[in-house]
Protein backbone atom coordinates (compact mmCIF):
# COMPACT_ATOMS: atom_id res chain seq x y z
CA UNK A 1 0.00 0.00 0.00
CA UNK A 2 2.72 2.35 1.08
CA UNK A 3 4.76 1.38 -1.94
CA UNK A 4 1.80 1.94 -4.23
CA UNK A 5 1.22 5.42 -2.84
CA UNK A 6 4.87 6.36 -3.24
CA UNK A 7 4.96 5.05 -6.81
CA UNK A 8 1.82 7.07 -7.60
CA UNK A 9 3.36 10.17 -6.08
CA UNK A 10 6.56 9.75 -8.03
CA UNK A 11 4.73 9.13 -11.29
CA UNK A 12 2.55 12.19 -10.73
CA UNK A 13 5.62 14.26 -9.96
CA UNK A 14 7.35 13.03 -13.11
CA UNK A 15 4.28 13.76 -15.26
CA UNK A 16 4.00 17.27 -13.83
CA UNK A 17 7.72 17.73 -14.35
CA UNK A 18 7.67 16.57 -17.98
CA UNK A 19 4.52 18.57 -18.67
CA UNK A 20 6.28 21.60 -17.27
CA UNK A 21 9.23 21.03 -19.54
CA UNK A 22 7.17 20.54 -22.68
CA UNK A 23 4.78 23.43 -22.11
CA UNK A 24 7.40 26.08 -21.64
CA UNK A 25 8.83 27.85 -24.64
CA UNK A 26 12.18 27.45 -22.91
CA UNK A 27 11.93 23.74 -23.39
CA UNK A 28 14.76 23.56 -25.88
CA UNK A 29 17.17 25.27 -23.54
CA UNK A 30 16.11 23.11 -20.63
CA UNK A 31 16.40 19.96 -22.71
CA UNK A 32 19.91 20.97 -23.68
CA UNK A 33 20.79 21.62 -20.04
CA UNK A 34 19.33 18.26 -19.07
CA UNK A 35 21.33 16.36 -21.66
CA UNK A 36 24.59 18.16 -20.86
CA UNK A 37 24.11 17.24 -17.21
CA UNK A 38 23.18 13.68 -18.13
CA UNK A 39 26.45 13.38 -20.02
CA UNK A 40 28.43 14.86 -17.15
CA UNK A 41 26.70 12.59 -14.62
CA UNK A 42 27.57 9.59 -16.75
CA UNK A 43 31.25 10.37 -17.02
CA UNK A 44 32.30 11.64 -13.62
CA UNK A 45 34.24 9.05 -11.78
CA UNK A 46 35.97 10.10 -8.61
CA UNK A 47 33.63 12.56 -6.96
CA UNK A 48 32.82 16.23 -7.02
CA UNK A 49 36.13 17.82 -7.92
CA UNK A 50 36.49 15.79 -11.10
CA UNK A 51 33.06 17.05 -12.08
CA UNK A 52 33.94 20.68 -11.48
CA UNK A 53 36.58 20.39 -14.21
CA UNK A 54 34.05 18.87 -16.63
CA UNK A 55 31.48 21.57 -15.84
CA UNK A 56 34.06 24.28 -16.39
CA UNK A 57 34.95 22.80 -19.75
CA UNK A 58 31.30 22.46 -20.79
CA UNK A 59 29.80 25.75 -19.55
CA UNK A 60 32.70 28.21 -19.54
CA UNK A 61 35.25 27.15 -22.16
CA UNK A 62 33.12 25.43 -24.78
CA UNK A 63 29.66 27.00 -24.68
CA UNK A 64 30.39 30.27 -22.90
CA UNK A 65 27.13 30.09 -20.96
CA UNK A 66 28.80 31.38 -17.79
CA UNK A 67 31.52 33.89 -16.94
CA UNK A 68 34.70 32.54 -15.36
CA UNK A 69 34.31 34.61 -12.18
CA UNK A 70 30.69 33.57 -11.71
CA UNK A 71 31.82 29.99 -12.10
CA UNK A 72 34.44 30.50 -9.39
CA UNK A 73 31.73 31.93 -7.10
CA UNK A 74 29.57 28.91 -7.85
CA UNK A 75 32.38 26.52 -6.90
CA UNK A 76 32.91 28.34 -3.60
CA UNK A 77 29.18 28.10 -2.81
CA UNK A 78 28.96 24.43 -3.84
CA UNK A 79 31.89 23.57 -1.58
CA UNK A 80 30.59 25.39 1.46
CA UNK A 81 26.97 24.23 1.48
CA UNK A 82 25.83 20.81 2.66
CA UNK A 83 25.40 17.99 0.18
CA UNK A 84 27.40 16.48 -2.66
CA UNK A 85 29.37 19.11 -4.58
CA UNK A 86 28.14 17.92 -7.96
CA UNK A 87 24.47 18.19 -6.96
CA UNK A 88 25.06 21.66 -5.55
CA UNK A 89 26.89 22.77 -8.68
CA UNK A 90 24.21 21.34 -10.99
CA UNK A 91 21.39 23.01 -9.05
CA UNK A 92 23.15 26.37 -9.07
CA UNK A 93 24.04 26.30 -12.76
CA UNK A 94 20.54 25.11 -13.65
CA UNK A 95 18.98 27.98 -11.72
CA UNK A 96 21.27 30.54 -13.31
CA UNK A 97 20.48 29.23 -16.78
CA UNK A 98 16.75 28.66 -16.51
CA UNK A 99 15.28 29.29 -13.08
CA UNK A 100 13.69 26.67 -10.82
CA UNK A 101 12.72 24.40 -13.71
CA UNK A 102 16.27 24.55 -15.03
CA UNK A 103 17.70 23.63 -11.67
CA UNK A 104 15.32 20.67 -11.34
CA UNK A 105 16.24 19.48 -14.85
CA UNK A 106 19.97 19.87 -14.20
CA UNK A 107 19.85 18.05 -10.87
CA UNK A 108 17.73 15.24 -12.30
CA UNK A 109 20.10 14.98 -15.24
CA UNK A 110 23.18 14.65 -13.09
CA UNK A 111 21.57 12.04 -10.81
CA UNK A 112 19.79 9.79 -13.29
CA UNK A 113 22.87 8.00 -14.73
CA UNK A 114 24.28 7.02 -11.34
CA UNK A 115 20.83 6.10 -10.04
CA UNK A 116 20.17 3.74 -12.95
CA UNK A 117 23.64 2.19 -12.86
CA UNK A 118 23.63 1.61 -9.10
CA UNK A 119 20.06 0.31 -9.16
CA UNK A 120 20.95 -2.26 -11.82
CA UNK A 121 24.07 -3.30 -9.89
CA UNK A 122 22.10 -3.64 -6.65
CA UNK A 123 19.72 -6.12 -8.32
CA UNK A 124 22.54 -8.54 -9.06
CA UNK A 125 24.88 -7.70 -6.21
CA UNK A 126 23.75 -10.43 -3.80
CA UNK A 127 24.14 -13.28 -6.28
CA UNK A 128 27.38 -11.76 -7.52
CA UNK A 129 28.76 -11.75 -3.98
CA UNK A 130 28.09 -15.49 -3.62
CA UNK A 131 30.73 -16.39 -6.23
CA UNK A 132 33.79 -17.62 -4.37
CA UNK A 133 36.49 -15.61 -6.07
CA UNK A 134 34.37 -12.47 -5.99
CA UNK A 135 34.04 -12.88 -2.22
CA UNK A 136 37.83 -13.25 -1.98
CA UNK A 137 38.36 -10.14 -4.11
CA UNK A 138 35.97 -8.21 -1.87
CA UNK A 139 37.99 -9.08 1.21
CA UNK A 140 40.93 -7.32 -0.41
CA UNK A 141 38.72 -4.48 -1.62
CA UNK A 142 37.46 -3.83 1.92
CA UNK A 143 41.04 -3.01 2.90
CA UNK A 144 41.33 -0.88 -0.25
CA UNK A 145 38.31 1.17 0.84
CA UNK A 146 39.91 1.80 4.24
CA UNK A 147 43.00 3.12 2.41
CA UNK A 148 40.75 5.33 0.23
CA UNK A 149 39.00 6.85 3.25
CA UNK A 150 42.32 7.36 5.02
CA UNK A 151 43.85 9.10 2.01
CA UNK A 152 40.74 11.29 1.60
CA UNK A 153 41.13 12.34 5.25
CA UNK A 154 44.85 13.02 4.83
CA UNK A 155 44.17 15.09 1.73
CA UNK A 156 41.65 17.21 3.67
CA UNK A 157 44.25 17.58 6.43
CA UNK A 158 46.86 18.80 3.95
CA UNK A 159 44.50 21.38 2.46
CA UNK A 160 43.60 22.79 5.88
CA UNK A 161 45.33 25.76 7.48
CA UNK A 162 47.60 24.28 10.12
CA UNK A 163 46.73 26.47 13.09
CA UNK A 164 46.89 25.07 16.63
CA UNK A 165 43.11 25.39 16.94
CA UNK A 166 42.46 23.40 13.75
CA UNK A 167 44.92 20.65 14.62
CA UNK A 168 43.47 20.36 18.15
CA UNK A 169 39.97 20.15 16.67
CA UNK A 170 40.99 17.38 14.25
CA UNK A 171 42.77 15.43 16.99
CA UNK A 172 39.95 15.76 19.51
CA UNK A 173 37.23 14.79 17.02
CA UNK A 174 39.25 11.78 15.92
CA UNK A 175 39.94 10.66 19.48
CA UNK A 176 36.30 11.14 20.58
CA UNK A 177 34.96 9.25 17.56
CA UNK A 178 37.29 6.28 18.03
CA UNK A 179 36.81 6.10 21.81
CA UNK A 180 33.01 6.35 21.53
CA UNK A 181 33.04 3.58 18.96
CA UNK A 182 35.31 1.35 21.09
CA UNK A 183 33.08 1.77 24.14
CA UNK A 184 29.95 1.37 22.00
CA UNK A 185 28.65 4.81 23.04
CA UNK A 186 26.32 6.38 20.48
CA UNK A 187 27.06 10.02 19.81
CA UNK A 188 25.92 11.15 16.38
CA UNK A 189 28.34 12.85 13.98
CA UNK A 190 25.68 15.53 13.60
CA UNK A 191 26.57 16.78 17.09
CA UNK A 192 30.27 16.99 16.27
CA UNK A 193 29.44 19.13 13.24
CA UNK A 194 27.11 21.38 15.25
CA UNK A 195 29.70 21.79 18.00
CA UNK A 196 32.31 22.65 15.35
CA UNK A 197 30.03 25.29 13.85
CA UNK A 198 29.34 26.81 17.28
CA UNK A 199 33.04 26.86 18.16
CA UNK A 200 33.80 28.60 14.86
CA UNK A 201 31.11 31.21 15.53
CA UNK A 202 32.34 31.61 19.12
CA UNK A 203 35.94 32.17 17.99
CA UNK A 204 34.74 34.73 15.48
CA UNK A 205 32.68 36.53 18.15
CA UNK A 206 35.65 36.64 20.56
CA UNK A 207 37.88 38.06 17.82
CA UNK A 208 35.25 40.65 16.99
CA UNK A 209 34.95 41.65 20.66
CA UNK A 210 38.73 42.06 20.98
CA UNK A 211 38.85 44.24 17.88
CA UNK A 212 35.94 46.31 19.13
CA UNK A 213 37.61 46.87 22.51
CA UNK A 214 40.85 47.97 20.87
CA UNK A 215 39.17 50.53 18.65
CA UNK A 216 37.22 51.86 21.62
CA UNK A 217 40.38 52.10 23.71
CA UNK A 218 42.02 54.11 20.92
CA UNK A 219 39.19 56.60 20.98
Amino acid sequence: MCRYLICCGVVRFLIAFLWGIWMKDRRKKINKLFFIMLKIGLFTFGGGYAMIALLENEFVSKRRLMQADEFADMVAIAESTPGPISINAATYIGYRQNGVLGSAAATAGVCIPSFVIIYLISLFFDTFEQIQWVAAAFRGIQVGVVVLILSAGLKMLRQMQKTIYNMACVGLTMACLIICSLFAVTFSSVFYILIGAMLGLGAYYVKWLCKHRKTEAKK
Partner: protein
Amino acid sequence: MIFFWLFLTFLKIGAVSFGGGYGMISLIREEVLSHGWLTEEQLLRFIAVSESTPGPIAVNMATFIGSSQAGSAGALVATFGVILPSFLVILLIAAFLKKGMKYAGVRAALNGIRPVITGLVLGTAGILFLSTIANVQTIHDSVLLDWKAGIVFAILVVSSTAYSKFRRKPFSPIPLLLLSGIMGILLYL
Protein backbone atom coordinates in the same frame (compact mmCIF):
# COMPACT_ATOMS: atom_id res chain seq x y z
CA MET B 1 7.58 2.60 7.65
CA ILE B 2 10.90 1.62 6.12
CA PHE B 3 10.34 4.28 3.43
CA PHE B 4 9.86 6.95 6.05
CA TRP B 5 13.07 5.96 7.85
CA LEU B 6 15.06 5.76 4.63
CA PHE B 7 13.85 9.19 3.61
CA LEU B 8 14.48 10.76 7.01
CA THR B 9 17.92 9.19 7.44
CA PHE B 10 19.16 10.28 4.05
CA LEU B 11 17.58 13.70 4.47
CA LYS B 12 19.68 14.07 7.61
CA ILE B 13 22.80 12.83 5.83
CA GLY B 14 22.21 15.24 2.94
CA ALA B 15 21.64 18.15 5.29
CA VAL B 16 24.85 17.90 7.32
CA SER B 17 27.35 16.49 4.84
CA PHE B 18 29.89 19.20 4.25
CA GLY B 19 33.10 18.78 2.32
CA GLY B 20 31.87 16.42 -0.39
CA GLY B 21 32.75 12.81 -1.05
CA TYR B 22 33.89 11.26 2.19
CA GLY B 23 32.65 14.10 4.41
CA MET B 24 29.52 12.17 5.32
CA ILE B 25 31.08 8.73 5.62
CA SER B 26 31.02 8.69 9.43
CA LEU B 27 27.35 9.66 9.54
CA ILE B 28 26.35 7.09 6.91
CA ARG B 29 28.24 4.42 8.85
CA GLU B 30 26.54 5.27 12.14
CA GLU B 31 23.03 5.48 10.69
CA VAL B 32 23.29 2.35 8.61
CA LEU B 33 24.76 0.28 11.45
CA SER B 34 22.32 1.55 14.06
CA HIS B 35 19.30 0.77 11.86
CA GLY B 36 20.77 -2.65 11.16
CA TRP B 37 20.53 -2.07 7.41
CA LEU B 38 24.06 -3.26 6.67
CA THR B 39 27.00 -4.86 8.42
CA GLU B 40 30.35 -3.12 8.42
CA GLU B 41 31.67 -5.48 5.72
CA GLN B 42 28.68 -4.83 3.46
CA LEU B 43 29.14 -1.11 4.00
CA LEU B 44 32.75 -1.31 2.82
CA ARG B 45 31.66 -3.26 -0.27
CA PHE B 46 28.96 -0.71 -1.03
CA ILE B 47 31.50 2.11 -0.73
CA ALA B 48 33.77 0.27 -3.16
CA VAL B 49 30.93 -0.05 -5.68
CA SER B 50 29.86 3.59 -5.20
CA GLU B 51 33.42 4.73 -5.70
CA SER B 52 33.98 2.77 -8.89
CA THR B 53 30.78 3.87 -10.65
CA PRO B 54 30.12 7.38 -11.98
CA GLY B 55 28.29 9.96 -9.91
CA PRO B 56 28.49 11.42 -6.42
CA ILE B 57 29.21 8.89 -3.67
CA ALA B 58 26.35 10.12 -1.47
CA VAL B 59 23.78 9.56 -4.22
CA ASN B 60 25.23 6.17 -5.10
CA MET B 61 25.19 5.07 -1.47
CA ALA B 62 21.61 6.27 -1.03
CA THR B 63 20.41 4.44 -4.13
CA PHE B 64 22.26 1.28 -3.17
CA ILE B 65 21.10 1.15 0.45
CA GLY B 66 17.53 2.13 -0.48
CA SER B 67 17.38 -0.57 -3.11
CA SER B 68 18.84 -3.23 -0.81
CA GLN B 69 16.32 -2.41 1.92
CA ALA B 70 13.12 -1.69 0.04
CA GLY B 71 13.54 -2.26 -3.70
CA SER B 72 13.09 0.35 -6.40
CA ALA B 73 10.76 2.58 -4.38
CA GLY B 74 13.25 2.53 -1.52
CA ALA B 75 16.05 3.56 -3.86
CA LEU B 76 13.94 6.46 -5.17
CA VAL B 77 12.95 7.63 -1.68
CA ALA B 78 16.51 7.49 -0.31
CA THR B 79 18.03 9.25 -3.32
CA PHE B 80 15.36 11.92 -3.23
CA GLY B 81 16.04 12.42 0.49
CA VAL B 82 19.77 12.88 0.05
CA ILE B 83 19.35 15.36 -2.81
CA LEU B 84 16.54 17.45 -1.34
CA PRO B 85 18.47 19.49 1.28
CA SER B 86 21.25 20.58 -1.05
CA PHE B 87 18.74 21.33 -3.80
CA LEU B 88 16.68 23.58 -1.51
CA VAL B 89 19.69 25.29 0.07
CA ILE B 90 21.30 26.07 -3.28
CA LEU B 91 18.00 27.26 -4.72
CA LEU B 92 17.64 29.62 -1.77
CA ILE B 93 21.17 30.93 -2.18
CA ALA B 94 20.96 31.28 -5.95
CA ALA B 95 17.61 33.05 -5.74
CA PHE B 96 17.95 35.33 -2.72
CA LEU B 97 21.26 35.24 -0.91
CA LYS B 98 23.76 35.50 -3.68
CA LYS B 99 26.15 37.14 -1.27
CA GLY B 100 25.18 34.75 1.53
CA MET B 101 28.45 32.87 1.45
CA LYS B 102 30.37 36.06 1.95
CA TYR B 103 28.87 36.87 5.35
CA ALA B 104 31.57 36.68 7.99
CA GLY B 105 29.38 34.61 10.33
CA VAL B 106 28.72 31.92 7.73
CA ARG B 107 32.41 31.70 6.96
CA ALA B 108 33.28 31.52 10.66
CA ALA B 109 30.88 28.61 11.16
CA LEU B 110 32.34 26.85 8.11
CA ASN B 111 35.86 27.40 9.42
CA GLY B 112 34.76 25.67 12.61
CA ILE B 113 33.15 22.79 10.72
CA ARG B 114 36.07 22.03 8.38
CA PRO B 115 38.53 20.61 10.96
CA VAL B 116 35.71 18.61 12.58
CA ILE B 117 34.86 16.98 9.26
CA THR B 118 38.53 16.16 8.69
CA GLY B 119 38.65 14.62 12.17
CA LEU B 120 35.50 12.60 11.45
CA VAL B 121 36.89 11.20 8.22
CA LEU B 122 40.24 10.31 9.81
CA GLY B 123 38.49 8.85 12.88
CA THR B 124 36.25 6.70 10.68
CA ALA B 125 39.33 5.51 8.81
CA GLY B 126 40.85 4.57 12.20
CA ILE B 127 37.73 2.66 13.32
CA LEU B 128 37.53 0.79 10.03
CA PHE B 129 41.26 0.03 10.19
CA LEU B 130 40.82 -1.47 13.65
CA SER B 131 37.80 -3.55 12.63
CA THR B 132 39.17 -4.88 9.32
CA ILE B 133 42.80 -5.48 10.24
CA ALA B 134 42.80 -6.06 14.01
CA ASN B 135 39.21 -7.37 14.30
CA VAL B 136 38.56 -4.95 17.16
CA GLN B 137 35.13 -3.39 17.31
CA THR B 138 34.69 -2.68 21.00
CA ILE B 139 37.20 -2.50 23.83
CA HIS B 140 36.20 -6.02 24.97
CA ASP B 141 37.33 -7.71 21.76
CA SER B 142 40.77 -9.26 21.90
CA VAL B 143 43.16 -8.17 19.16
CA LEU B 144 43.12 -10.76 16.41
CA LEU B 145 45.48 -9.61 13.69
CA ASP B 146 44.42 -10.50 10.18
CA TRP B 147 47.91 -10.61 8.68
CA LYS B 148 46.63 -11.03 5.11
CA ALA B 149 44.64 -7.80 5.42
CA GLY B 150 47.72 -6.19 6.97
CA ILE B 151 49.80 -7.17 3.93
CA VAL B 152 47.19 -5.75 1.55
CA PHE B 153 47.07 -2.54 3.58
CA ALA B 154 50.87 -2.16 3.62
CA ILE B 155 51.23 -2.79 -0.13
CA LEU B 156 48.43 -0.35 -0.95
CA VAL B 157 49.85 2.41 1.25
CA VAL B 158 53.37 1.96 -0.12
CA SER B 159 52.28 1.80 -3.76
CA SER B 160 49.92 4.77 -3.55
CA THR B 161 52.45 7.00 -1.78
CA ALA B 162 55.17 5.95 -4.25
CA TYR B 163 52.82 6.67 -7.17
CA SER B 164 51.91 10.13 -5.90
CA LYS B 165 55.59 10.92 -5.20
CA PHE B 166 56.80 9.97 -8.67
CA ARG B 167 53.84 10.98 -10.81
CA ARG B 168 52.92 14.04 -8.73
CA LYS B 169 49.23 13.17 -8.86
CA PRO B 170 47.11 11.00 -6.57
CA PHE B 171 46.55 7.31 -7.25
CA SER B 172 42.97 7.23 -8.52
CA PRO B 173 40.42 5.04 -6.72
CA ILE B 174 39.58 2.56 -9.48
CA PRO B 175 43.14 1.19 -10.05
CA LEU B 176 43.58 1.11 -6.28
CA LEU B 177 40.41 -0.95 -5.83
CA LEU B 178 41.40 -3.22 -8.73
CA LEU B 179 44.81 -3.79 -7.17
CA SER B 180 43.27 -4.59 -3.80
CA GLY B 181 40.78 -6.96 -5.44
CA ILE B 182 43.56 -8.84 -7.22
CA MET B 183 45.50 -9.12 -3.95
CA GLY B 184 42.33 -10.34 -2.23
CA ILE B 185 41.95 -13.13 -4.81
CA LEU B 186 45.62 -14.09 -4.50
CA LEU B 187 45.61 -14.14 -0.69
CA TYR B 188 42.16 -15.37 0.31
CA LEU B 189 41.19 -17.85 -2.39
